[in-house]
């Protein structure tokens, strides 16, 4: 077999960087942190080659601000970090959500809290990704389990941020970020890319926060005659503060959520493995889905009907999908590298089935054996 050009052997973090370039990201601002550093390192080298901008900022707060600023100017923009840096980005993430500026934040999770286990994997940021910034904000969170998924979901994250004009989080982890494996990189022209909707209204007619049927407002490039106000206060359709107007507040907040709901089918990604006749459903995401898949194969060899529902979209939580897959099973097992975060969402949607966690927080991957043992224990 000869070496095909589009087959690569690369790290998850490399795949994220490759995908960002191919999906049209042309601005990256960040601050290095293990285990996400390779993304910044590679983009520092590649951005100038595509006339993009790479900025190493003084910290994570500033890099998030720079990313939002670049996107306000009309450029697809991204940053990457790990848990401690992700915390620092939260304030500006809320800003991006309410002013509806597309951006992508990659969080390659490591053990926490705080500096925790700097080089080791964890899944402790699941709730931070959802609720890290304050207020009733919308957010989309995607989580890859393989290098190939790291590539695909990075493209999707960028597309969804443009489609929805909202921040999207790629929630990776130290295993997926650093593992090297095979990935097929599609050619640039075969990738389906989504660009934010640009207004065709004149500068005189344009109102920055008038939304279409889908709840997403049209974007206008500054410097082309359009002058408009952007504020993180509750604002009206013209973009001006309306902080004492209850009706405006209500309709803005509800619209921010409605636009995510409108595109629910486009942003819900999952995979299944031997679920058709499964009696024991394992629900997993990120690197743990790898162990869970192996556990399903091992259990099936022993005649135990196990199946895997791998969630690639964590937020908005795919409640209907989980309900559908839980319907026919006896018990549900949720392995996570935290002490139980997504399991609570599963419990709400498991149709009163028993939901049992397998949890590990010592910086080591949950093994297929641990998951299989738990299935046998509760059987």
């Amino acid at each position: 077999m000869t070496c095909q050009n589009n087959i690569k052997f690369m790290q998850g973090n490399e795949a994220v960087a490759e995908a960002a370039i191919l999906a049209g990201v042309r601005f990256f601002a960040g601050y290095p942190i293990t285990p996400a550093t390779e993304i910044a390192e590679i983009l520092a080298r590649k951005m100038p080659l595509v006339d993009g901008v790479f900025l190493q900022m003084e910290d994570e707060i500033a890099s998030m601000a720079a990313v939002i600023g670049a996107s306000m100017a009309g450029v697809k923009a991204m940053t990457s970090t790990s848990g401690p840096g992700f915390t620092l980005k939260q304030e500006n993430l809320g800003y991006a959500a309410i002013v509806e500026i597309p951006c992508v934040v990659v969080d390659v999770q490591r053990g926490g809290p705080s500096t925790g286990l700097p080089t080791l994997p964890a899944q402790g940021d699941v709730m931070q990704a959802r609720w890290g910034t304050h207020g009733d904000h919308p957010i989309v969170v995607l989580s890859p389990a393989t290098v190939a998924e790291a590539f695909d979901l990075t493209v999707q994250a960028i597309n969804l941020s443009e489609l929805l004009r909202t921040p999207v989080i790629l929630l990776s982890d130290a295993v997926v970020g650093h593992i090297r494996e095979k990935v097929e990189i599609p050619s640039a022209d075969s990738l389906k890319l989504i660009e934010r909707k640009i207004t065709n209204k004149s500068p005189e007619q344009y109102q920055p926060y008038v939304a279409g049927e889908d709840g997403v407002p049209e974007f206008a490039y500054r410097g082309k005659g359009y002058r408009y106000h952007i504020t993180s206060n509750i604002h009206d359709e013209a973009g001006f503060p309306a902080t004492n107007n209850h009706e405006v507040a209500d309709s803005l907040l509800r619209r921010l959520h409605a636009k995510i709901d409108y595109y629910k089918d486009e942003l819900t990604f999952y995979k299944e493995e031997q679920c058709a006749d499964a009696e024991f459903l394992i629900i997993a995401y990120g690197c743990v889905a790898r162990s869970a898949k192996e556990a399903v194969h091992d259990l099936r060899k022993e005649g135990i009907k196990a199946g895997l529902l791998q969630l690639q979209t964590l937020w908005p939580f795919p409640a209907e999908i989980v309900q559908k897959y839980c319907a026919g099973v006896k018990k549900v097992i949720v392995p996570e590298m935290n002490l139980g975060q997504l399991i609570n969402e599963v419990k709400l949607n498991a149709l009163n089935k028993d939901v049992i966690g397998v949890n590990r927080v010592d910086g080591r991957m949950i093994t297929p054996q641990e998951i299989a043992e738990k299935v046998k224990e509760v059987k």
Partner: protein
Amino acid sequence: MRKEIVLSGFGGQGLVLGGIILAEAAVLYQGKQATHTQSYGPEARGGASKSEVIISDEEVNYPEIDCPDIFLAMTQDALNKYGEAVKKESIVIIDTEYVTDLSVLKDIKRIYQFPITEISKRETGKALSANIVALGIIVGLTGVVEKDNLEKAVLKRVPPATKEMNLKALNAGFELAQKTN
């Protein structure tokens, strides 16, 4: 077929690159699936370091290695730290220049001892290519990938000016292993 290979030694012996080359030989040239992971901690900056490769006909899900099929130890520290995971049927390859005490390897039948770094210095004038000598030995002993494919993977990864040197190192390791087997 599924083979789990651990390359261990000292940070700086090129074992991370060695692991990547072996995995690329499998994925890019032999049509196999493979994963590569590396120990990533303070020890990578001078202490024991570890590079793990799994080569398989099927997709590799769980990427960690509990008991390697093939275990390379290029330093005593690495052998002491990782050697206990080795199982009876494992193939163990030792660099005698740095490893003298094999007491951690109990009941292991297939232990191959070569002066790997010495061979590298003799063949290329440099200790630097010891990782490639080791790859030659691994492939010569086990056939985990075909030699041609290993050659292609080496040539893809090493700097152009060192191609000849690295091929020499690879061949030296490979031939030595063939004679031994």
